[in-house]
């Protein structure tokens, strides 16, 4: 991985990373919960495998965009093996910038008729 593709660079957040950021934006989730959330939100169009998921989680942790939390927020599924992640303020900032960029891109696409007027 080169610095050029660092996830902290707002111009170039890979899709998998952005999906994970979205999944942990409103609440803490463990790995499988993130996979489920992404799958449900995209209607099954985007599926994360465990390798992709944890490779991405490692990168997000290193870039300080998410963090691992010590307390277990879901006592019903209390399982010591599960680790929970949530978005950091820095991660929130990056996600906002990235979605704004995508929104702008969508506007441009609509203007030239490359995207439908309503989603």
């Amino acid at each position, binding site marked *: 991985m080169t610095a050029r593709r660092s996830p902290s660079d707002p111009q170039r957040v890979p899709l998998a990373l952005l999906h994970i950021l979205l999944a942990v934006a409103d609440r803490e989730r463990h790995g*499988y919960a993130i996979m489920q959330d992404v799958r449900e939100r995209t209607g099954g169009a985007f599926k994360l*495998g*465990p390798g*992709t998921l*944890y*490779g991405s989680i490692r990168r997000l942790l290193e870039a300080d965009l998410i963090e691992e939390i010590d307390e277990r927020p879901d006592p019903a599924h209390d*399982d010591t093996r599960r680790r929970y992640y949530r978005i950091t303020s820095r991660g929130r900032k990056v996600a906002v910038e990235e979605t704004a960029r995508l929104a702008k891109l969508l506007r441009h696409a609509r203007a030239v008729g490359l995207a439908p007027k309503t989603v």
Partner: protein
Amino acid sequence: MQWPERVYRAALRCYPSEFRDEYGGEMLQAFRDQWRDTRGPRLCVALMADVAATAPKEYGRVLMNDLRYALRMMRTSPLFSAAVVMTVALAIAANTAIFSVVNAVLLRPLPFGAPDRLMWVAERNDALHIPTFGASLLNYLSWKEQTQNVALAALGSVTFSLSGSGDPEQFAGSRITPSLMPVLGLQPLSGRTFRDDEERPGAPAVAMISEGLWKRRFGRDPAVVGRTVNLNGVPTTVIGIAPPALAVLTGGDVWVPITIDPAHEIRLNHVVNVVGLRKQGVSIEQAQSEMDAVSARVGRQYPEVNDWGIRLVTFRHWFVNDQLETALLVLLCAVVFVLLIACANIANLLLARATAREREIAIRTAMGATRGRLLRQLLAESLVLSLLGGAAGLACALWAVRLLDRLLPANLLPVPDIGVDARVLSFGVFATVATGLLFGVAPAWQAARTDINAMLKQSGRSAIGARSRLRNGLAATELALATVLLVGAGLLVQSLMNLERARLGFAPQNVLTFQLALPPAKYSRDVKGPAFYRQLLESLRALPGVRGAAISSGIPFGAGNYTTSPFAAVGPSVLPPDTAVPINWRIVSPGFFRTLEIPLVRGRDFTEADNARDVPVIVSQAAARRFWGADDPIGRVIRRPNDTQMMTVIGVVGDVRDTALNQESPAIYYPSAARVWPLMDVVVRSEAGPEALLPGIRQKVRELDPELALATVRPMEEWVSGSAAQPRLNAALLMVFALLALVIAAIGTYGVLAYSVTQRTREIGLRMALGAPAGRVIRLIVGEGMLVGAGGIVAGLAAALAITRTIGGLLFAVPAHDPLTFGGVAAVLAIVALAACFVPARRASRVNPIVALHDD
């Protein structure tokens, strides 16, 4: 546990251990959850694809981290890194350069269509002990008619005088059969090659020229094909430009078809070399048995050749003689030794540094780095060092190869050029990576298994013990390898000195040599040619400053004709009756022996009155001894087998080294008054500085025949030194490598001791505090170092005893186990080792006991 989980657990092993340790459990859990919700073959496929896509990425990341860390480590110790990189660069450059020569000569296929199926079809005569010899044209024709499995072609050398456009100039060239180009699988660069009907007598004169001649003499004129030039006085049409590969076989710049007139050929006249191309699928043994049958049939048909057979020699063996092959392999071994010594040395440096980094490593271990992880990290560091060194080394090698190509004497190697190709580059890259692993593995292993408890408690005694044993062993190995190299270099240098001291049998100083080729159309070999030379020599001798002038069909070490024929004594002889002995023969003019200062031992020199009718000959002392032992040879008679012409010995001259410095051969001389060759060597002895005579000599030649050109003008001394070019190069290169090895090994020994002294500052201080005098401390340290040194030297001498046997063929007048060389090398190495020990020992003796004991 269910089987899908077992499979997934196994698949997780594809990830690097750090990643697995961190997330393996989580991933397994995610898998279980997923499997519970959506089991099925599609999930299996998706999971495997996920592993295959992400595992290599994780590895790449780990590698990049290791490399980044390695580069950071390099920057923290720039001197150390520079030393290692430079050592690797030197060793890799030397290895790659020598390998490029080995590749060009031994590995790269010869530049012909099917080099593996090409052979030299030589004549052989077991009775005369002639293993390989040229063939006669009539035999060539007979073989060609009768063989099924081998396509044959013939070539003979000839000298051309080219005139008509610009100054007359002389060129070496060949007469070749039209079949030669297809047999070699070659195409002309432009124009065409010879047609079959052009070898018949009376065919129009045609020639092919080399690319070099086309560029030089004809200024790359595209219209040269079809032009008429004057070759040896005959108007000849240039029909094509030959490919450079043709000259690899024949040499020279001009090719004409051999015209074969069976009516005028003699079956015993061995004037050409025959080459053969085996049909696809025919082994050399099959071809040999077919040729045996053919030569037996020809022998029955023509009894005069019934004792001549055929020997097939592969092109590879024809082009690369055993001596050259041995020399190249010896040089390759030498540079590999240098590389090994360099590796041992760097390993030693790394071991020393590993000690300095013990705390860092211990801390990393304590923080959870596994041994494999540390090993990989340390290996990455040594690989980065070796790759940097290798890159620099390859760059140096590219430059060195270009230099070698320019500096090597022409004709030293049987290849058109030495170059760097894919194989050479792969060798360089392989050597670089192997070097990095070789010098990195032992120190990395040692460092990675450091006992962290002991280390953090600052008393890693056991690890240090093992490490110092390893360091001593490496230093001893360096010295042993250097010993082998020095012994080899010593033997070769002595051989070279013996060669250069070898009694030549003549005085080459102040002698100028050149060649003249009289066009046969203008000068007959028995009347006009001899008359021309008589006149020329007379006018040359009249030049001021000239002390003598003479001609010969082949001067010693020269480029002239080398002719060996069987001779037998008539009448009483120490040999059984009719025993034929192969002997070199030369045509010489009166005054030849005086001009070259070859002593006339008995009898008389030739005079202009000696002619073809009585055929007087002069023999060398070795030839006289061979036939008549200690008896007086004057008046004795010899003849060629199958020839009734009797030849009477009128004089005996001293032996001369003719073809090589390491070879003294019997010789017979014929008078030039009877007959000359189309190409003759002329020698002129002057009072001093023979080159000053050149304008006068050219003037005299022009006065006699303005169309004649002087060729191969060269001082006699240059011929002699040229013949020692290969031994000189071997000795020089091996000496350079041996000295390089010695320096590296000395640094290595010094490094080991200097380090050991630093480690033992406390102990030494204690000894001195207890009253040990400085002298005893020096003795202690030197003694310890010399124990390692002596071990290395003794092991090296033993290895050298075993190895030098293989270079026996390269040695001249030195036994492979020469005690003087072995003793001398041992002494030199002992002195160097002693010096390397003494410096740290002195430092130890200056240890201040108070400071040493306070230290720590």
